[in-house]
């Protein structure tokens, strides 16, 4: 289901979260309070809360959710937020397996951001949470509605939504062309050869 142009225009100027069911997965009371206050400011008022991997599993098994905001670090020595998202994507729970997920974390080292991408989250947002950033990401997810990819190694939203070209200008496949064009090896084509190739016709 794609949204109409008018709907998207409305989404760009206003936000209606009154009827949205939002799952907050956050292990600390203070962190949960911060999340709730921000989202209530956005107009949301229907929250489901979980403080651990197991609680979050139970919630998504019982109720449909429209958005999940999940802290990366849950209980120590137990499965974390990335594990929860990975489990959710492969759970085949309808419609929750496709629910938009924003992972929040205080420490965005490359390993954590990589895990967030590979577990099937839509976005990772850095703590301390800035309301404007969180709202921007929620709207971005709703507007783009990335398709879901399902394969052995990955289940989640399409990750290739930016075309940045091959990494470092060099493709990884054997038949990828080099970014360096180099000097021409064939002689330039004559005008006749070009005309024969293009077959130009007079416009009447």
């Amino acid at each position, binding site marked *: 289901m794609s949204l109409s142009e008018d709907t998207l225009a409305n989404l760009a100027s206003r936000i209606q979260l009154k009827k949205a069911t939002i799952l907050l997965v956050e292990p600390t009371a203070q962190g949960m309070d911060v999340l709730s*206050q921000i989202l209530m400011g956005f107009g949301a008022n229907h929250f489901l809360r979980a403080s651990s991997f197991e609680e979050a599993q139970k919630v998504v098994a019982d109720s449909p959710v429209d958005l999940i905001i999940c802290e990366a670090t849950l209980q120590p020595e137990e499965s974390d937020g990335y594990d929860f998202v990975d489990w959710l994507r492969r759970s085949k729970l309808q419609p929750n397996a496709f629910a938009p997920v924003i992972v929040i974390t205080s420490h965005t080292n490359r390993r954590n951001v990589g895990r967030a991408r590979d577990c099937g989250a839509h976005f990772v947002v850095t703590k301390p949470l800035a309301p404007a950033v969180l709202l921007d990401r929620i709207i971005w997810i709703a*507007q783009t509605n990335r398709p879901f990819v399902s394969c052995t190694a990955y289940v989640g939203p399409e990750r290739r939504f930016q075309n940045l070209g091959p990494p470092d200008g060099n493709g990884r496949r054997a038949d990828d062309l080099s970014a360096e064009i180099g000097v021409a090896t064939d002689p330039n084509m004559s005008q006749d050869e070009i005309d024969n190739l293009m077959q130009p016709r007079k416009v009447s």
Partner: protein
Amino acid sequence: MSAVIYTRPPNRLGKLLAAPGGRKLSDAVSEAQANLDSIRDQVTGEVDVALSRLRESVAAASMVDGGAEARADVYAHATAIAGLAGLCGLGQLGQVAYNLCELADCYIERQAWNSAAVAAHLDTMTLLRMAGLPDGSPEGVALLEGLKSLVRRVDASAGGPGLDQDAPL
């Protein structure tokens, strides 16, 4: 080669968000900020609690037999501070905590530990909290820069720095 299946699930969130009514984006952001300001004191209290727990964990981790658990606690408490301090006007303290996250993470990964480097972060956080320096104060900036260069040196041989801002996946 394994099969790759593409599906485009219904955009339930988009439909809900775009329903008539709701709040203007600017109003939504300012209301959220006002709500955060209303819990500022509790958040500050939570930062102080985390700082005191961090102090205990740093002491335990610096013992000769300081185990992996105490070091993991240092990382966990630093993470808690980094996630909250910026919400209550203690942004610089939060940045030092973030720097400590980088350092502790790097040490844990490499199974190393430098108590003096960790203690320098704790002392800086304590100083920033006691002195009540405003965010962006030159003293705070200079302290933070020194600690960042310390982590850069440690990090140089182990991977690379963290990502600065929320990253699209």
